[in-house]
């Protein structure tokens, strides 16, 4: 813990002094700085072990180096990511580092060498997004290895990214307020308050920037602030929505774990503009590390006088309390979140009266998402005109997506709005990870839809691969931005099964307050389950369409209003799959268990007995030198035989579609050839 000051910071000069101190932490002159990614994605890949090994090694060997924890730099699949900042200013990133690798990296770094096996890239110059400042290095001070290392910014995963929200994630120690300040943090909030900006000027800047709510709805942020400022009633509240619940989306968590101060600074500016003295962050209980790091950041900000009474020595009070959510998806909805915050059951209410007029405890309340808040300091510092140049006309700025699924490179990517799906999955994602044809991209989680991207890279033929990604275009095609989940699916994904999965998710996560959402979704899920089980009937499609309409039109909140999207988008773009499931009882993706059968190709079986041994239901008969057979009565379709067979003998089929397991081993000949 880096404490030790008791002074409240009230002048730019004082803040500059802290900045210098933080800068020395970030870029030490006499020693190395070794940062290990220990956000949740880093931890689950073994980041803690790497951190401990590196720290022990440095302590025991007396090497001059700081070993610190940092957040996620986005490339989650490559975690644990370790970066080494050298006294000459170069930062070298390594991926998938094991504890043993870490020791090698440290010892090689001292010699000016680079551990090429795990090298990801280097950073030699940085443009700090805030204050327009930058940092340059002198290449003549680099070693040969360092000169040769490729630039991280040229890595295909990073090349098209613009980091505004994730500006500090993976670079600073999230537990150090000094390092946040070193990269321009808190200067904007201080400027606004010390220079005595009119709150209206702040709001106008946000309105001009065109910033829209990043939580999914896409409501203009400035307009919301304006309504809340003008609303009658006191006290007013500003709230940060960190109840991130979409399956596959985790950008809020990453920001809170990697750069919590950016959210705090955004909230200070927002509270000042709106005229609020109380702030809340509603964060998932399931994000313990995010809660811990945010709580620590709040404590540090209080110590420096950025939160609490008389912020920056001026006549403005603001503080933030942390409220933990109990794990309900619906509590990400604004009114349900506020109900939960009050201590009531997290159920939404109708928004005929907006929350900016009557929200928490019936007082004016302004709720924005983590990502929205993190954008605020940058917009105020750089100005609306600068921000507007990024993105599209209707959707300015950047958006953080969590790119997951069947692409080679997965992780958190921050890209300008308007980037095409093609750029997302081919340039950033690197194309298919399985060499299969892409089928669809699911955006927006359970409230979004599946967008077809048929064939590899071909446009036309119903494919929307060249669709620019922004709020309006996604809504037009029947999906939505949501919180930015982006799941890439290939031909091994059954679209009926996707609709079934998301609809069942919503059946569980609906609060159950209104009839249409609770009962409508229950019946829709029932029909979808039946279709996947091969019990689908022709009339089910009409019933599903009717249900979708009534759920969307007559439900109380946005959860119900958007709940039919997975169903409707798959019905719209992949009707042939529904047809096949219902009329032919066939699943072309070979996913729906009731519609597929497993068999063994007698011309390929080597009688190796592995599948026979591994089959958990004893469905495979065979023996030494006897062709193996699967008893369909006993088979539970667990896919184990398919996975363990190395001779291409197991076939899974459904109607005219079939797939054969991979043929990787050739040391045994098929038993048929051997016996005869």
């Amino acid at each position, binding site marked *: 813990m880096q404490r030790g000051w008791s002074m409240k910071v009230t002048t730019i000069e004082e803040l500059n002094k802290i900045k210098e101190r933080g800068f020395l932490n970030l870029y030490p002159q006499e020693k190395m700085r070794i940062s290990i990614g220990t956000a949740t994605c880093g931890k689950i890949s073994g980041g803690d072990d790497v951190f401990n090994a590196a720290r022990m090694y440095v302590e025991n060997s007396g090497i001059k180096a700081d070993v610190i924890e940092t957040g996620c730099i986005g490339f989650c699949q490559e975690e644990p990511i370790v970066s080494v900042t050298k006294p000459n200013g170069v930062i070298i990133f390594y991926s998938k580092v094991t504890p043993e690798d870490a020791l090698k990296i440290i010892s090689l770094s001292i010699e000016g060498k680079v551990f090429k096996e795990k090298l990801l890239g280097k950073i030699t110059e940085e443009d700090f997004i805030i204050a327009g400042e930058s940092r340059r290095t002198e290449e003549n001070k680099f070693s040969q290895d360092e000169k040769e290392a490729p630039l991280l910014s040229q890595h295909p995963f990073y090349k098209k990214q613009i980091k505004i929200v994730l500006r500090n994630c993976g670079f600073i120690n999230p537990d150090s307020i000094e390092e946040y300040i070193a990269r321009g943090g808190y200067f904007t909030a201080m400027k606004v308050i010390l220079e005595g900006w009119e709150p209206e000027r702040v709001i106008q800047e946000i309105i001009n920037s065109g910033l829209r709510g990043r939580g999914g709805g896409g409501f203009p942020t400035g307009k919301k602030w304006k309504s809340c400022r003008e609303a009658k009633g006191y006290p007013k509240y500003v709230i940060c929505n960190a109840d991130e619940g979409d399956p596959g989306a985790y950008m809020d968590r990453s920001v809170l774990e990697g750069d919590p101060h950016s959210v705090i600074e955004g909230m200070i500016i927002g509270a000042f503009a709106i005229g609020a003295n109380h702030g809340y962050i509603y964060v998932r209980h399931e994000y313990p590390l995010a809660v811990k790091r945010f709580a620590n950041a709040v404590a540090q900000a209080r110590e420096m006088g950025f939160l609490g009474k008389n912020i920056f020595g001026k006549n403005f009070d603001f503080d933030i309390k942390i409220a933990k959510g109990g794990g*309900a998806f*619906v509590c990400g909805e604004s009114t349900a979140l506020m109900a939960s915050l009050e201590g009531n*059951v997290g159920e939404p*209410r*109708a928004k*005929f*009266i907006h929350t900016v007029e009557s929200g928490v405890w019936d007082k004016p309340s302004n709720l924005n998402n983590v990502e929205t808040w993190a954008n605020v300091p940058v917009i105020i510092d750089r100005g609306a005109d600068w921000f507007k140049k990024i993105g599209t006309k209707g959707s300015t700025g950047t958006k953080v997506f969590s790119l997951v699924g069947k692409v080679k490179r997965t992780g958190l990517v921050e890209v300008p709005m308007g980037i095409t799906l093609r750029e997302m999955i081919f340039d950033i994602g690197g194309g298919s990870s399985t060499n299969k044809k892409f089928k669809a991209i699911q955006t927006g989680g359970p409230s979004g839809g599946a967008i077809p991207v048929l064939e590899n890279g071909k446009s036309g033929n119903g494919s929307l691969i060249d669709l620019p990604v922004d709020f309006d275009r996604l809504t037009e095609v029947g999906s939505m931005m949501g919180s930015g989940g982006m799941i890439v699916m290939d031909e091994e994904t059954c679209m009926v099964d996707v609709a079934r999965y998301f609809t069942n998710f*919503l*059946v*569980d*996560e*609906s*609060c*159950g*307050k*209104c*009839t*249409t959402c*609770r*009962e*409508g*979704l*229950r*019946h829709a899920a*029932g029909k979808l389950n039946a279709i996947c089980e091969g019990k689908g009937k022709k009339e089910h499609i009409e*019933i599903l369409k*009717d*249900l979708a*309409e*009534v759920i969307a*039109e*007559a*439900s*109380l909140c946005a959860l119900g209003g958007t709940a039919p999207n997975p169903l409707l988008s798959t019905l719209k773009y992949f009707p042939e799959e529904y047809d096949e499931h219902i009329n032919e009882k066939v699943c072309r993706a070979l996913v729906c268990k009731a519609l597929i059968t497993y068999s063994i190709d007698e011309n390929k079986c080597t009688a190796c007995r592995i599948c026979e041994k591994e089959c958990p239901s004893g469905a495979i008969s065979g023996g030494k030198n006897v062709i193996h057979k699967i008893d369909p009565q006993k088979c539970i379709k667990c896919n184990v035989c398919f996975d363990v067979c190395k001779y291409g003998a197991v076939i899974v089929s459904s109607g005219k579609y079939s797939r054969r397991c991979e043929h990787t081993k050739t040391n045994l000949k098929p038993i048929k050839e051997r016996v005869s």
Partner: protein
Amino acid sequence: MQDKDKIIFTVNGTEIECKKGEMLLTVLLREGFDIPHLCYHESVTPYASCRLCLVEVNRGNGFRIATSCNHPVFEGMEVKLNTEGVAEERKNVFEVLIAQAPESEKLRLYAAKWGVRETTYRIQEGDCILCGLCERVCREVIGASAITFAGRGANKELTTPYKVQSSSCIGCGACAYVCPTDSIKVFDKGFIREIPKLHAKFELVPCRICGKPVTTKEHLEFLKKTKIEKATLETCDECKKKEYAFLVASQGHM
């Protein structure tokens, strides 16, 4: 009514006057329009769960389907009742309600009144539609909060906290009175009152005249705090009649 509190809006083109802050359904019912509703009661806050009181309300350039029970009336509001869209969605809502609570005769009769006699959806068990009227009456009117929802989504159910008899329950039966589907039933057997849905069992207090059971002790305590005539609280209906008849006969009706 002061002028600044007055709001004029139109329903199917006819102008209607009401007070600022009133909910649309309240005004519509007062004006004599027949709108189906199950989760609404004038004595509690609207909850908007049953989704039957749908109307079309102007919003932006067009009209949007909305529930009327929780929709505040605003100046210049245009309301359309029983449009084609509303009728279609309402039919669907009735159908899922019947599927959810097929055992409720009261619900079936109500739906039949609105022209819905059967459901295309898979019938489940039960007679509760989770409208929450009992919960609100118990909390807002009685002040007992003896009833609660448990679970979420498809697993949501109406019960008592921890599914045992609530210590705050007074056995008054207000919940059963407002229940639109007769899901909550009150059984008086001898000097025992049972409300199975609330896991509640009470002893009944005898009539001070004839000794027949009247109501629960807790209920009497509650009634004593209200403005209701105290003298006849512990009297059964039969004896009340006799007592009033005696008073009229002996003292005259003036």
